[in-house]
């Protein structure tokens, strides 16, 4: 990884950790020092980071709920309205036979629920990301953890200190 161009004003630092505990220590310290604008990179989801970052419950679940309900309503509405559009009796069954329509409703619930959940994830996770993320290092998808801290020059310097102290293998400017 090439070192970033030296700038007089650096907006943040990225710590590269080869050790989960070191990364956790750094994160805990940074949090304790009041750093709010932190990004943690982890090759696999680690609940330890979540615990430390104390995030709010992800709103993705609401998307699921709304998607599911919409799908259900659309499924039923579709089946019922099209059946009524041209009334054809089959097998002596009512035009609007709800039991079979439950299946349509159900499948639409799942379909819309799933697709809107995915859409919700994309929205909330700010995907797709078209530009390079500041401080990202390809090793973060391999075997290194990363913490990127942003702030004023003083904060950044302090963050670098904290990271190095915690055991960062490298601390790079962003």
């Amino acid at each position, binding site marked *: 990884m090439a070192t970033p161009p030296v700038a007089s004003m650096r907006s943040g630092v990225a710590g590269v950790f080869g050790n989960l505990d070191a990364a956790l220590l750094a994160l805990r310290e940074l949090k304790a020092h009041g750093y709010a604008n932190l990004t943690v990179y982890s090759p696999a989801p680690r609940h330890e980071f979540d615990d430390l970052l104390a995030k709010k419950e992800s709103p993705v679940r609401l998307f699921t709920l709304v998607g599911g309900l919409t799908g259900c309503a659309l499924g039923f509405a579709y*089946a019922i309205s099209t059946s009524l559009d041209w009334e054809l009796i089959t097998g002596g069954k009512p035009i609007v036979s709800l039991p079979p329509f439950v*299946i349509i409703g159900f*499948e639409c619930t799942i379909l819309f629920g799933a697709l809107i959940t995915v859409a919700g994830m994309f929205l909330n996770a700010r995907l797709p990301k078209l530009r390079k993320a500041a401080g990202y290092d390809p090793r973060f998808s391999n075997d290194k953890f990363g913490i990127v801290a942003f702030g004023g020059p003083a904060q950044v310097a302090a963050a670098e200190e904290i990271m190095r102290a915690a055991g960062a293998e490298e601390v790079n400017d962003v």
Partner: protein
Amino acid sequence: MAAAAPPMPRGAPAGEPTYGDVNRDIIKTLAPPGKRWFLGMAIVLSGLAFGAFCWALQLRAGIGVTNYMPPIFWGTYITTFVFWVGIAHSGTLISAILFLFRSGWRSAVYRASEAMTVFAVMTAGLFPVLHLGRAWFAYWVFPYPNVRGLWANFKSPLVWDVFAISTYLTVSATFLFMGLIPDIAAVRDQATGWRRRVYGILSFGWRNSDREWHHFMRMYLFLAALSTPLVLSVHSVVSWDFAMGIVPGWHATIFAPYFVAGAIFSGCGMVITILVPLRKLFQLERYLRVRHFENLAKLCLLTSMIVSYAYITEYFVAWYSGNPIERASFYNRAFGGYWWASWIMITCNAFVPQLLWFKKIRTSIPTLFVISLFINIGMWFERFVIIVTSLSHEFEPWQWTSAYRPNWIELGILLGSFCWFSMWFLLFVKFFPSVAISEVKEALPPPGREHGRGGH
């Protein structure tokens, strides 16, 4: 691409891999394909071409080119349709249901299973079209606004099927792809040149950040939660294709759970059938461990028992119902013109899996592979028995027959379907990681804790 790594020793895998090992070993599977891969692809494509040729003949002349004979209006195609839908199911079971149950062992095998699901549904989805008398009007079963003002009959189980299968395909493909995103990102970070760009696009710019993981895990959980009822519903709906009919031998309330269990059974069998060569060829012994196969074998044994129980129940209910037509149908199933199909089914599905009670057999990969082949054959015959023997011996004795046998056109299309499936799978393993990188990592002790407690 990763730099050349020291070759893995063959035979017993070394200890727990590290994060770095995982990346290296799995991304290595995407290395440019060798001769064997191209040979395999050539075989698969020629099989597919033969299947396509058979279908072309059928489209040109009519379904008459098959050996279908009334009253057996459904035969090989619907059998194979149900077979492939069934195969699909264990993939979702392993990826979604075991995810919800937090079964850690799934992480190593789920990617291949989920891919198998998608490709199996893609294969299955061909058959309802293939078997149509007028395949070129297949789109009429979709309720789309049209100039005739006609819609689809939502009371028809076949329309339920349309919805179930297309939902299943969409959702399982989404689920597979969502799970792939972090891994694609990992591949991207190792790749160079145009590959890097392509994987970059496919990864949607995934960066492994805490925000991404946070929402991703939620989404993944809900997808799993939605997939679980979906997978149960899909095979239930497929079973209702039959159970909603009044054909003796089809018209049974047991069909939904019976079919779901059978589907998972056949799917687990197919997962074993696929993973054994995959593990061998890609030297993934460190990730696909005997433990995983043993668990799959246990799942096979469990579902085999459920399926066997369903067989017994079917016969019991036929007898206990006192309905002479139902009884005749089941008597015919076991001892009539298609006795051989029934006994192949029972042998492969009920008797052979009993061997899995023995740990020695469960942990012997070659034996498991052979048993899995038996399961595949048995489950194909299960559908054949349900469809063909029931139709051959319905209400009207004047219309009984047991002369139907698949002919070369039908078998050609059956072969074509296996090749179609294999083609997608072969492409998949060369373009995407067939073991989930991030999930395997998640299950491993993280860097710095390798000698501490294990993952789960």
